[in-house]
């Protein structure tokens, strides 16, 4: 729905995406709870996607809630693993092991849902 709106408004989403891909810095945070297979899978998937779509312009921070449980409350984390796109704004949350690349890209707003 929101993506459709955006498509309706923006004259050229491709141009927008390409400009983003050249200038924007990505700040990502991956919340895990210990070294679980799901967490490791999520990290590997994330790394792969980042290298593909934003090489050299991303930063991944891993937050282990077992060590920093307070952050779970502060950052409103329920599901594990959760990937949070802190930058570029707006904040986005993507949950799961990121094995569905299509949906991960949609979640990161690197691709609109209709495509």
């Amino acid at each position, binding site marked *: 729905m929101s993506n459709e709106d955006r498509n309706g408004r923006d004259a050229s989403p491709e141009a927008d995406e390409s400009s983003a891909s050249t200038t924007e810095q990505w700040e990502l945070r991956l919340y895990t709870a210990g070294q679980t297979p799901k967490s490791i899978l999520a990290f590997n998937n994330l790394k792969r996607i980042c290298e593909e779509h934003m090489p050299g312009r991303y930063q991944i921070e891993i937050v282990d809630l077992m060590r920093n449980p307070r952050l779970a409350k502060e950052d409103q984390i329920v599901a594990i693993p959760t990937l949070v796109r802190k930058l570029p704004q707006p904040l986005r949350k993507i949950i799961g092991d990121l094995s569905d690349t299509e949906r991960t890209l949609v*979640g990161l707003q690197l691709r609109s849902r209709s495509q």
Partner: protein
Amino acid sequence: MTARVQASVAAPPGRDAERSADRNLPKSPTGIAGLDEITFGGLPRGRPTLVCGAAGCGKTLLAMEFLVRGVTQFDEPGVYVTFEESEEELAQNVRSLGFDVEALVQQGKLAFDYVHIDRREIEETGEYDLEGLFVRLALGIDSVGAKRVVLDTIESLFIGFSNMALLRSELRRLFRWLKDRNLTVVITGERGDGTLTRQGLEEYVSDCVILLDHRVDEQVSTRRLRVVKYRGTVHGTNEYPFLIDVDGISVLPLTSLGLDHRVSNERVSTGVAGLDTMLGGGVFRGSSVLVSGTAGSGKTTIATHFADAACRRGERCLYLAFEESRDQIARNVRSVGIELQAHIDAGRLRLEAVRPSLHGVEMHLVQIHRLVGEFKPSAIVIDPISNLGNTVDASAMLLRLIDFLKTNGITAMFVNLTTSGGALEATEVGVSSLIDTWLVLRDIEAGGERNRGLYVIKSRGMQHSNQIREFVITSRGIDLLDVYAGPEGVLTGSLRASQEAREKAAALVREQEQQRRQRELASRRAVLQAQIDALQHEASTLDHEIGVQARQYTLATDTIDQDRRAAVQRRGKESA
């Protein structure tokens, strides 16, 4: 209604069962008035309890009170996990109910966690679990050393996440996790269509399920609570009304709905001497009296006499007025010579005026419960019960109230307004069977005026007058007069007075006639006496004459003899 009443009367849970249940199943008292009585001690300790109901039925409040009272009364810290409202909203909502949760949080006895899930900003991209929730729960529990946890309402997870199979397995894991930590948990759930909860939470929480209900009948809202299920223990199975007010939740527990209350043979005065006489010496202590009558028939006056009499005996009386304000009642009864203010000042009388429309019938009765608990009266007046409504609910509630009062040995007087014109007794069928003594005040209209008549329809266990008395309110109180009962029927008021006057006049006439006849006879007697006197006089005159005549005769005879002898002497001389 009948079914409900029967069910509630039959087999109140026995004490033995209660004890053994307690031994098998440790319980966490909620501290919520009445709930611990229904559940025989509280919620299952170390286990989850599901509290379900429609929106606005009081789930959140019940859960919150469970935690707050856990801290303040049982020294059991708690964690409140809210999925719908922020901590600030929650704290604000319950502050009006007298819970200062912020203070408890500051003391480190209570922890909040607002789990906010906005599906719009979440994309699901594969396998995940809810470990984050577990981490947060563990943190909250450890920070206060919690023994109690509230999850309000965990069903929000089903809106936030789309993988149902995963959610269900995670929920199962969550409840096991909570049980392993021996936490007493309250889980709230929104009532579903035909099911207890929308997402079937009852499937996971099998130990105890409490259903809250909030109904609006005839524009009056009523809240009810029912323990649907409580594994391994006895519990009250009825729907119990509850209210939410400044002190939190109060459930009206009527577990003692047996007919085994103690009865007293002691008589107490109704405050009206004539009425006590009609009842053979007052009503039994702890019995219930119904006073019914049309508007203006003097019901409140009787009720205030009753209250006054109780206070004069040095007992406490609770007077619940649904129609008039305190001052209005005090002023009105002053005109009939009853000074209620003195009793109020002395702390013997508590006059509570409540607008009937403010609450539902349950609310009233729970409030009565609470007042009785606080004030501990030996007598109570409810004026009038007709304002509680005439619904089936109202009479069922009244049954419970009467039973409650009887169990506590409280003598009760219920005032009931009946509509004039209709069948006076018909409206009260629902209540009358529960009442021990039933007085009816009836207008007797005749001769262009309206007078009050009082009679006793029934009075269990005592001899009582079958007569209608005229009921007169004077500045000194109530007088009961014998009505005129004669060939003309029962007469009251001026008719009685005029009938009496007519009788008086007739009596006077009879008396005068009698006197006239007496006088007539006396005078005839006098005449006769006079005649007797005259005749006697005549007789004595004749007696006299008889004597005179006899003497004259003797004299004459003597004279003749002398003459003859003289003649003989003369003849003898001539012949010689």
